[in-house]
């Protein structure tokens, strides 16, 4: 099988990959010197050193993505492990049709979506138990919200949280990870036009949600 490799920086903004760590120059320089294509080829052959290097190179950026999607540090660690293991177990299916980072981000995003679904099921069950015992027990979510409400940017965060999943994903990938629209489209497996439509819809929702709460001037 011929595998085509995209050199990382040409297709994917390397700095934006590590946007959360932009104040960590050592990490960026380390990534710069990695020959991803060689690492992947050797990892596919089961070379443990290559696999270790691959994990070292990408674990932090995958963690950043998971953290931004799940907004929970502990769960982000779990998701990062799952995403990296899934990627390593399926390295042979990476055909170089996109950059490796894009492929890895897409896997991580799917893991996070699964965890969000599980989390919603858990929250629903917690509500049910409260309904069952007819007790208005305050959940940690409510406690967290009370703390957040004291913060200046709480309204904006709540508005982002309230966006539809698909819209929130593009907002976070665009404004936290600072990815270009083409990269977002590749990660999500949709067209550029769809990404633009989701961004526009997100702006419209956010403007309405924040009307009167935030002074833009």
């Amino acid at each position, binding site marked *: 099988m011929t595998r085509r490799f995209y050199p990382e920086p040409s297709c994917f903004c390397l700095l934006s990959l590590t946007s959360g760590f932009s104040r960590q120059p050592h990490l960026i320089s380390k990534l710069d010197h990695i020959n991803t294509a060689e690492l992947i080829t050797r990892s596919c052959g089961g070379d443990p050193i290559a*696999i270790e290097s691959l994990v*070292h190179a990408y674990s932090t950026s995958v963690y950043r993505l998971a953290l931004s999607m799940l907004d929970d540090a502990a769960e982000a660690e779990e998701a990062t492990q799952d995403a990296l*293991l899934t990627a390593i177990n399926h390295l042979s299916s990476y055909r170089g049709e996109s950059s490796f980072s894009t492929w890895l981000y897409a896997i991580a995003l799917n893991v996070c979506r699964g965890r969000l679904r599980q989390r919603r099921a858990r929250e629903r069950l917690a509500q*049910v138990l409260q309904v069952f015992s007819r*007790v208005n*027990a305050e959940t940690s979510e409510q406690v967290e919200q009370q703390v957040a409400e004291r913060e200046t940017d709480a309204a904006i965060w709540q508005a982002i949280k309230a966006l539809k999943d698909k819209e929130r994903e593009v907002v976070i990938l665009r404004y936290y990870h600072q990815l270009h629209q083409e990269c977002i489209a590749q990660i999500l497996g949709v067209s550029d036009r769809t990404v*633009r439509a989701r961004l526009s819809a997100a702006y419209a929702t956010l403007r309405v949600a924040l009307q009167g709460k935030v002074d833009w001037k």
Partner: protein
Amino acid sequence: MTALTHDRVCRVLDTGREQLSVAERVELDQHLAECAECRAYAAELTALQSTLGRVLHERWDGLRPDPQLENRFQARIRRQTMSRRILNNALGVAALLAVVVIFVALFSARAQSTAANSPTAVTPNTLTPTTLPTLTSMPTSPSALPTLADASTPQASGSNVLPDWLDERVDIGVATLHLHCYGKGSPTVVLNGGPSEAWITWQSVISAVGKFTRVCAYDRAGLGSSSPGPEPRTSQQMANELAALLDKAKIPGPYVLVSHSTSNWIDRLYTAQHRDQVAALVFVAPFHEDMISGTLAILAPYPADLESTRQEMANKGEGLSVDDWLTSADQVRAAGTLGDLPLVLVAPGKVASGSEPYAGQMAAMLAQQEQQLLALSTNSVRLVADNSGHFIQRDQPQMVVQAIQLAIEKIKP
């Protein structure tokens, strides 16, 4: 005014100037200079976009992954790679033996045929295939191979020393369960989350308890990274799976069993069957086994509420129907009391009664049931987590840690 329409300008601004050619940018700037409405929209959008970036960065940039995170990944991947290698080698050996067995069988048949034709030939008893290992005795599937815990942890080789942390999937036959352990020492604290709660609910508790003893949390079958388990998902089934997990992963007792919500049912059933292994119990915001039947009785005069509650419970209970919950309650009731086993109960402090006409009756029932839970042991104590709702392990993890410390102190020497 230029040819750009207001809608077109909005779309262009939404998607960013980087999409535009130089000529289009000039045209856009010209339009903005002339149109106050579009200028206001552009200003608002720019402010919104920069605010979004700032809010998100402030929220997450300060959070750093655990410094041990990468080491944990690396070790987990190494174990998995090793396990796969063992499997591949085993399959290779099995294939080789298959060839040998076929060859020997053919040779034997040919020798017998030669013997039949020649009265002087020796009967080749020593060449029968039965003297060789058969294919069926070779490990050909992952479940037949040593578990990850067997292959990678030192206790498998006879030592009692466990690594400081463990994060793996353990095959218990009916399912593969995700187990996470941390710390050293005895007793081993075993954490069991409430309905539909994966092990991660205990994250803060684990990091604190792991500093003074060994602590393990797991995903029950069907939760988190564990595979689904057999149905019906009753508490007894879950207790059996917990026993198999501790046994297969060779997690040494004695155990301090810590449970949240209705999961005290699972721990009590486990205790009834493995009393010698359990040193103490901690119940975090527990519900008594009579809570569901009691609630159904109180709601009986209110058919609409009763029906909606039953339906919600049936739809969303970790694979348990209302009948499964009631069956589980029967199982726990039959398990009996805890004797003088140390028991620490942590109650949530932030619980307000509802406004329904039966709210008072319900609150009284829950208070009485909490007393019944405390009375399960002659050696029990109640703590209150003043600033917590139902999820004390998240709201005030230090209270759960204190309860565990207290339970360990109460264990008889």
